[in-house]
């Protein structure tokens, strides 16, 4: 550590941003009349596992989608790894970013989708390799070697040359996880990744994510309805409703002693069955 680093840490403001991986500042997203994100502030520290819970249709997924640049927020600023995602600093001012900038910041983020969204015309191996080859400048051999490792890690060494249509839902989702990991993201976004699965296949997918959460220092933002899973892996649970964060706390606190009426009602409803 050199002197300028030390000087930076002394300055408490920049020390806290150094540890911040994702920062959403008054982010608003409106669809027609529906205010999906209402001046949302959310910070996620580097390595933190944040689980977002809340009623269906409340826009939890939109938080992930604006982070992945699948939806452009109407206003507000988002920073990933200290870099503004939709803005560029030019002449001391934040201006709308060009596509090239968005793409370079987005490189730190990857996402696993509810409906897998695997490329159906590619084998499992190609699905995982294409990103690193195109966006990380890997050669085919490098990318394939890494993809084999990752597919092995999610238990699919035998399925490298299978097409998505030949895989079960759980297997598809594990390929999708490997595909996202191949991008070496600092931030992983999981969007209700077990909601489209048959109940008996949920476990194999959650095991992979649990393993990842416990063994890597990757930052994770997870939207899920699996409360047991949330309790197990989350550093912090965020209750989201009406476009805002209702309350947030470590899972032990939030699940056992929710402060807000709306959280209590929600938890009552989902934990009942």
């Amino acid at each position, binding site marked *: 550590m050199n002197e300028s680093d030390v000087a930076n840490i002394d300055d408490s403001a920049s020390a806290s941003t150094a540890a911040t991986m994702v920062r959403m500042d008054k982010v608003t997203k409106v669809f027609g009349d529906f205010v999906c994100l209402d001046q949302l502030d959310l910070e996620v520290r580097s390595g933190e596992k944040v689980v977002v819970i809340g009623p269906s249709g409340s826009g939890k997924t939109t938080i992930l989608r604006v982070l*992945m*640049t*699948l939806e452009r927020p109407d206003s507000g600023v988002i920073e990933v790894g200290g870099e503004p995602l939709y803005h560029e600093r030019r002449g001391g001012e934040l201006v709308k970013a060009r596509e090239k900038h968005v*793409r370079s910041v*987005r*490189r730190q983020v*990857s*996402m696993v*989708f509810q*409906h*897998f*969204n*695997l*490329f*159906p*015309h590619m084998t499992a191996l190609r699905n995982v390799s*294409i*990103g690193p080859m*195109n*966006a990380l400048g890997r050669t085919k051999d490098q990318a394939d070697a890494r993809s084999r490792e990752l597919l092995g890690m999610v238990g699919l060494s035998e399925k490298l040359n299978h*097409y*998505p*249509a030949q895989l079960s839902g759980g297997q*598809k989702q594990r390929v999708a996880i490997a*595909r*996202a990991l*191949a*991008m070496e993201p600092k931030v992983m976004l999981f969007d209700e990744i077990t909601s489209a699965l048959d109940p008996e296949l949920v476990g194999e997918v959650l095991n992979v994510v649990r393993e990842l959460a416990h063994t890597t220092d990757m930052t994770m933002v997870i939207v899920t309805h699996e409360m047991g899973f949330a309790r197990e892996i989350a550093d912090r649970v965020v209750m989201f409703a009406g476009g805002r964060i209702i309350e947030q706390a470590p899972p032990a606190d939030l699940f056992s002693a929710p402060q807000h009426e709306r959280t209590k009602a929600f938890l009552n409803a989902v934990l009942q069955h």
Partner: protein
Amino acid sequence: MLTARMVAQADGPGEWDWAFARDILPDLLRGLWVTVRATAVGIVIAMVLGLMLAVARRSRIKIISWPVAAFVEFVRGTPLLVQLFFLFYVLPTTFGIVPSAFVTGALGLGIHYACYTSESYRAGIESVDRGQWEAATAVNLNAVTTWTKVVLPQAIPTVIPALGNYLVAMLKDAPLLSTITVLELLAEAKRIQAVTFRPTEAFTMAGVLFLAVSVPSATLVRFLERRYRYERV
């Protein structure tokens, strides 16, 4: 070339004469060859240009998408015959470009059908699930790779039947090229009729020859369609 021998040999103009039919066959085949070449060049233009028009029309940049949309609607809204005349007479007189009649004709067919194939491509592109685009973003593919490796490989198989129909339709529109002096199949048949006053053999054979090309083309398309089909997730 038709000879006086053929004319002399002929019986009454209404009766089928096998010897006459055999004699005019080489001329008709030469015409058919021109038709097939014009169609082949035309379909290549229609497939490539059509794809470019479809992609350009989806551009977020309005200076690109609007003129393309206007061009497609204009071409689709005017007869091929008028477009052929335009290319044949206006290109040389106004722009000083003098391509051969064949090139003009093939180009005319290709451009005309490109505007139809572009709509098929567009439908094919729209049939690709939005999640595919989103996954491409999630693995940070650039625009070119997203198109060439993700979207088009899924869109184009769905477009093959439509392209095949346009191929056959184009073959059957090729006789319009006779109006701009291209000696294709129908023009040859007309020429034979004009010289020999025997319409029966020439036009019947022209029809049969068209059929002989269009039926295998349709079969080929069905084969391709089966071959490139894959299961959707």
